[in-house]
């Protein structure tokens, strides 16, 4: 079956927008993806007909909202092939999930002199929570290096593993470079030394099928808004045994079994980690996004995006003076580039005047910018609804702006 690109584009109403009188070419998907009508409708339907707080009332609407909310958890369990819905913790996003692990698993298991390993291509969200933990505990953050193509140096990574290593936390797919890390190998090496592995899947999850049991990762985190769902919701997947042993994160309603002024006992999984009223509509919207993605298939999306990336890369390489930042062999649909002395912010403004949305900046990965000795890059990132025709618009725009800058 051919990829139903026309149908998919029709499913995303925002793609009909005109930006500065030109058709929108949305290539900032690594920052956040647009939402299909099915997700928008799910939220409108909830607030119009079914909304109340979850896990509380005996009244009809609370039961309905709870059912939809828990159905989203079930869908997510299947989507990432978790063993149990107890392993799906709804959080605010990938950042929140990493902070949760740092503040619970990290505080309980990482002590003075222990080591945590990350990589040179992490997003700030997989650097700063560990720095904060290390500072508090007197632990040490180790950074596995990469080569100029943006590929992790595996021998160097392996050499960092030792008896003091208590956690490996690596990005599955880099947001600044597009690199897809050899996570199976990373997990194998770490597990051989009984070291748990957290994967930051914020970028990988919208682009590739993820099976947490096949990967055998201990934690997998991502945000909903990059997966065609609303902001304010994300997922922490954790192996049940690990989650059960972890102390709670925040205290409050929903995460308790009993409360007296002397002592409280905590709810079981997953509610132990979901204090307070959750993002109800957003979680239900995330469930709708999964339903939508399932109608197309993540494997088909991955194959289609690989074609887009190959085409964009081929055309970009024809442009004199364009340098691609991130040329890993294994790469997701991200094209980060520089144009010599033309600053990415100027590129961003100029392309915006043509209706093209890209990201210009450090992509919350300042150490990556330092590594390549650039203050910023321009980044076009593709999603399931982009087309080769849109890439042509981008390439023509880049050629013209180079000419204008002279």
């Amino acid at each position, binding site marked *: 079956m051919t990829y139903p690109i026309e149908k998919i584009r029709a499913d995303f109403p925002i793609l009909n927008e005109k930006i500065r009188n030109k058709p929108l070419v949305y290539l900032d998907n690594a920052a956040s993806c647009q939402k299909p009508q099915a997700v928008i409708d799910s939220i409108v339907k909830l607030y119009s007909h079914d909304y109340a707080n979850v896990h509380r009332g005996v009244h009809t609407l609370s039961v309905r909202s709870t059912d939809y909310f828990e159905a989203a958890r079930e869908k997510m369990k299947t989507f990432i092939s978790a063993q149990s819905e107890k392993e799906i913790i709804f959080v605010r996003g990938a950042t929140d999930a990493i902070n949760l692990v740092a503040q619970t698993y990290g505080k309980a298991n990482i002590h003075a002199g222990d080591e945590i390993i990350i990589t040179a291509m992490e997003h700030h969200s997989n650097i700063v929570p560990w720095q904060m933990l290390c500072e508090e505990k007197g632990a040490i953050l180790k950074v596995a290096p990469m080569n100029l193509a943006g590929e992790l140096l595996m021998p160097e990574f392996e050499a960092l593993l030792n008896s003091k290593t208590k956690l490996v936390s690596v990005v599955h797919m880099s947001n600044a470079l597009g690199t897809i890390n050899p996570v199976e190998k990373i997990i194998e090496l770490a597990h051989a030394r009984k070291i748990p592995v957290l994967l930051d899947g914020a970028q990988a999850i919208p682009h590739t099928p993820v099976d947490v049991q096949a990967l055998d990762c201990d934690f997998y985190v991502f945000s909903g808004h990059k997966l065609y769902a609303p902001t304010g919701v994300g997922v922490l997947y954790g192996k049940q045994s690990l989650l059960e042993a972890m102390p709670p994160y925040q205290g409050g309603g929903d995460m308790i079994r009993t409360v007296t002024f002397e002592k409280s006992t905590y709810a079981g999984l997953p509610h132990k980690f979901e204090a307070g009223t959750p993002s109800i509509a957003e979680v239900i919207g995330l469930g709708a996004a999964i339903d939508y993605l399932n109608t197309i298939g993540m494997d088909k999306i991955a194959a289609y995006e690989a074609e887009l990336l190959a085409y964009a890369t081929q055309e970009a390489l024809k442009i004199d003076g364009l340098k691609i930042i991130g040329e890993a062999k294994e790469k997701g649909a991200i094209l980060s580039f520089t144009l010599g002395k033309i*600053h*990415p*912010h*100027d590129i961003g*403004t*100029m392309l915006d005047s*043509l209706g093209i949305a890209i990201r210009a*900046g450090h992509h919350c990965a300042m150490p990556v910018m330092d590594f390549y000795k650039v203050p910023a890059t321009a980044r076009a990132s593709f999603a399931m609804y982009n087309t080769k025709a849109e890439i042509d618009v981008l390439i023509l725009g880049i050629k013209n702006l180079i000419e204008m*800058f002279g």
Partner: protein
Amino acid sequence: MFEDLRDLYQEVIFDHNRNPRNFHVMENYDRMVEGFNPLCGDRITLFLKLDDDLITDASFQGSGCAISTASVSLMTEIVKGKTEAEAEALFKTFHEMTTGKDENINFEAVGKLAVLAGVREYPARVKCATLAWHTLDAALKNEQQSISTE
């Protein structure tokens, strides 16, 4: 292709971006302040030489987008020979021009800087134009070694 951008990217801006004026490290400066825009990574170091309250020399180093480079280049030209009070007054006028608070641009007051008025139509780029002036303000007040637009 970029007709809509002509107000923002005027030829003077390209000229100052290609050939920034006063683009060098200053020996024996009286003030040096680093200005940083963490949003886009623009980074400048501004040097001033003062004679009492008179700015006798200004230069800069750093890297940034065309708007920020042109802005700091133009600024170093225009503030030379001005008193601190005159420079601060110009900053105020410039700020009002770029943030669009004053609909009528006082061309007499801003002179060459009028080429940067176009940023007011591009809110995301205003900080590129004002970074230079915030850095100058910090240098004149002599309060800190580095400033950030965030």
